[in-house]
């Protein structure tokens, strides 16, 4: 008996995180990390001044699949004017064949 080939074993995940100007997926990109499970590239902090896409929808149109979107959470009472992390975070993936 020969072992069946599992095509999924040849796939690796690439992850793109887009931070957008508003909670709308069609709003402009303000920040963008990339992580590459194929090992072909090594993106790192401060390696680019230009985002890979102009909006979240532009990433969808290029084949990225949305896997998580930041919830809209009201500010903590008493801290309505505080600024902290970026709020509008969208995680995308692509599965890439090795």
């Amino acid at each position: 008996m020969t072992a069946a080939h599992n095509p999924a074993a040849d796939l690796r995940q690439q992850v793109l995180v887009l931070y957008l100007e508003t909670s709308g997926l069609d709003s402009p990109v303000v920040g963008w990390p990339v992580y590459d499970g194929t090992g072909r590239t090594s993106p790192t902090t401060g390696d680019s001044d230009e985002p890979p896409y102009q909006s979240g929808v532009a990433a969808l149109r290029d084949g990225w699949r949305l896997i998580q979107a930041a919830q809209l959470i009201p500010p903590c009472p008493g801290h309505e004017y505080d600024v902290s992390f970026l709020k509008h975070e969208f995680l995308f993936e692509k599965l890439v064949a090795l």
Partner: protein
Amino acid sequence: MLNSVQMARFVAYGSLRMDAVVPAEMNAEALEVLGDGVPGVPYGTPLSEAYPQGSFPRRLLELPAVAGALRSLVGPEPDIDHHAVHVRLPREGQAQPLHGDAIIDVRRDAFDVQLMYYPQDVTLEMGGTLSVPGSHLRRTNESDTGRYQNLRGQDRLVCPAGTVVFLHHGLWHGGRRNDSDTVRYMFKIRFNPTVRQRRLWDTSDLADRRVARELDTTFPWYEHATGRLERYNRVLLWRALTGDDSFDLDHWVTRVSNRPQEVPA
């Protein structure tokens, strides 16, 4: 001394950059001094006691442009928090995650500054410090921001030898990956103020219209709504630094503080 327009720019950007203010002969000397390391000083050592007369750090801090900026930002005789020589080795393969130094620091009416001195010409390839203009008022803890690899409008430092940058303690920054064949040095000193940080600079131009223009700066990485809160918080900081509780930009603070107590006749 700094003027009000420069201070307002610091309040908006969270940094003050002075290109090539250290003379070439000191930069050459620095490469040797920093290569050997600079002996540490205990936390909280007064500036005047931290570095011996004639030592390199002392002469660096006595340069008029450096001394004037430092005095304008934190006042006379600050304490030395700590100093460090940062070395980015050639092709070391890794950048620092974006971070704020120390731990989350939410003081609204006081701030530390960090001097960063670059003795060499820094090219883009050498991985000069990445910093994010206008990030200093964000309440985040150290490297919890490590996921943010790139932000629109970020500053990837490229500078001539002898450049000094002062950073607000909260500014997001990190050493970028050095993709060159050159060792890159940076000398950092953190200062703690010992006096109230109010009108410590040359305030003769306080009414200059450029002050408000600088304070009203927006940055490309700000989300639309949060960018308004950034200006709100800047107004509060400017009020603390000037003692002028009537200062505002576009009514941001005044509007949401308005709670009239007068009873109608």
